[in-house]
């Protein structure tokens, strides 16, 4: 029974990780830019959920509808206004630039919200589901389902919509995409917008489970990194596979080795994958 519980925990965690990583992976894959602000976008999304609940009484699922366009706009503007100026620069420059932006954003949140943890406590609480010895908190299950749903929506946009196809086309062959009449800078900004929207929405969901603090941005970002490398870059299925893999590994690892080793495990896995299989579990072919 313990085994089932561990796997269940791993799946819940894995879906959330997939949602965290999907947008990050999209930006990395399409723009070849690592957005170090991703973690802070997530935390900002959590604050949005917290604020909306405190001030307006909006439940997180309602806030999602608010967060998606807000964060899309934020991401679009940041890319068009700032990042696009150095889009062709070496890795060091884009990486350091997003780090600088992240410092600003994170510091702003620290000033605005202080470092102490806040919690979004739903009233009445959702309680837990139990089946025999299995216990699952309802909020986690709901967050997991929404995370899956969001990831699916992103997947559908990329697969089915005109703009989504253009994003994928730019990722696969930028010059051929230009021949199809695609405006590449617009697509870059759009992809970045989607990445930010995914981060914001993930943050809203995470607010239901985890305490909120600017300090969490680093760990969230770390998860996104690991998931991307494990699953393979730039694809939604890669993010899902990587996320579930990481969730299960962490869940099993914390039982076998103790919870304090979970982070070590995931980063060790990252290094091993980088060296042995840099294209991730799904290989480099994945795209959507």
């Amino acid at each position, binding site marked *: 029974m313990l085994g089932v519980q561990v796997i269940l925990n791993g799946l819940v965690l894995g879906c959330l990780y997939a949602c965290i990583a999907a947008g990050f992976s999209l930006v990395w894959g399409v723009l070849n830019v690592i957005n170090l602000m991703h973690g802070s976008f997530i935390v900002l999304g959590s604050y949005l959920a917290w604020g909306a609940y405190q001030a307006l009484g909006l439940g997180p699922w309602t806030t999602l509808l608010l967060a998606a366009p807000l964060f899309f706009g934020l991401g679009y503007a940041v890319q068009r206004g700032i990042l696009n100026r*150095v889009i062709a620069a070496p*890795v*060091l420059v884009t990486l*350091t*630039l997003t780090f600088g932006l*992240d410092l600003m954003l994170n*510091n702003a949140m620290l000033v605005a919200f202080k470092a102490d943890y806040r919690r979004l406590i739903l009233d009445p609480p959702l309680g837990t589901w139990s089946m025999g010895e299995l216990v699952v908190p309802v909020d986690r299950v709901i967050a997991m389902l929404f995370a899956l749903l969001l990831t699916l929506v992103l997947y559908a946009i990329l697969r089915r919509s005109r703009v989504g196809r253009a994003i994928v086309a730019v990722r696969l062959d930028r010059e051929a995409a230009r021949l199809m009449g695609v405006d590449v800078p617009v697509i870059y900004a759009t992809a970045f917008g989607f990445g930010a929207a995914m981060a914001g929405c993930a943050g809203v969901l995470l607010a239901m489970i985890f305490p909120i603090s600017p300090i969490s941005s680093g760990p969230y970002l770390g998860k996104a990194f690991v998931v991307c490398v494990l699953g393979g870059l730039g694809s939604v299925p890669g993010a899902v596979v990587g996320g579930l893999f990481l969730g299960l590994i962490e869940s099993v690892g914390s039982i076998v080795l103790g919870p304090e080793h979970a982070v070590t495990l995931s*980063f060790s896995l990252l*290094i091993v994958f980088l060296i042995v299989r840099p294209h991730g579990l799904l290989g480099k072919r994945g795209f959507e």
Partner: protein
Amino acid sequence: MSAVRTTPRSFRIALVLLVLLAGLPFLGSAYALRIGTFACMYAIMAVSWNVIGGFAGYPSFATAAFFGFGAYCGGILLGKSWTLLAAVSIAGGAAFVAALLFGMVLLRLRGHYFAIGSLAVAEVLRELTNTASNLTGGGMGLNIPLAVKGSDSVLGEATFFFWAMWAMLFLCFISVRLIQTSKLGFGLVCIKQNESAADMIGVNATLYKSLAFAFSGVFVAMAGVLYAAWVHYIEPGDVFDVLFAVKPIVMALLGGLGSPVGALLGAFAFLGIEELVWRNYLQIHSGVLGFLVVVLLLFLPHGLMSLTQSLRSRSGRKAVA
């Protein structure tokens, strides 16, 4: 042969700066000593990072890993009553060998992947340090006994560590300068410019890159030992701080990529700015730092030095696409 164009003149300027820095203890102020020690430490980081990041062009985020590794190595050895000199030598040697071996695999990665890989090393080391609490004290941190016998005054100890850090910087700067003018430095510049072409003319790129990685680590690790002995208390979150990985890059960018002299100047300038921001905007110091980074990258892609060199035709060439 100057593979990277650092003129003898700017090298002399740097030496003069180092000598001027050595005058700080004579001010007799504890504050000046503290700032001076930090200036030396930052400069060691920036000048060292320059070997892998500036010469070889690999975006390493491993400085925090080296620093933390050195600090804990030193802390543990000092705790076991080894002398400071022994601790410094052992930590430096271990860091060099580890970086060399690790570099052999890690440096097969390029661009973002190398950056992430090097960043992850620090994370893994930090978590390992956190969990190996028998040895390291874990998250509780590690207390380090006085390493300097015989200096009973606080100022005396501060002076000692200033000189120690200064000497380390001097050693580091001269070494890196020697690397720059050596065959190794020349090969690294070739690798940065075009790795496959470098391979084709007979540069053993794997070996050279790994050596660069090792040299970018050895002095930082030794500075880590000195830091640990100086502050008497370290904890994993402190010495493996990701900021230690990023600050040297900012300093090197500030001074202009690829030149040890620039890195030295960049480190001093950075510390000055940081100190100013700390004093005046404690609440938003990291935000201001971020703002500086953004402005620097967007408007001064070739560093402060490029301001003085009346805008050469090259400065606009690489800027924005």
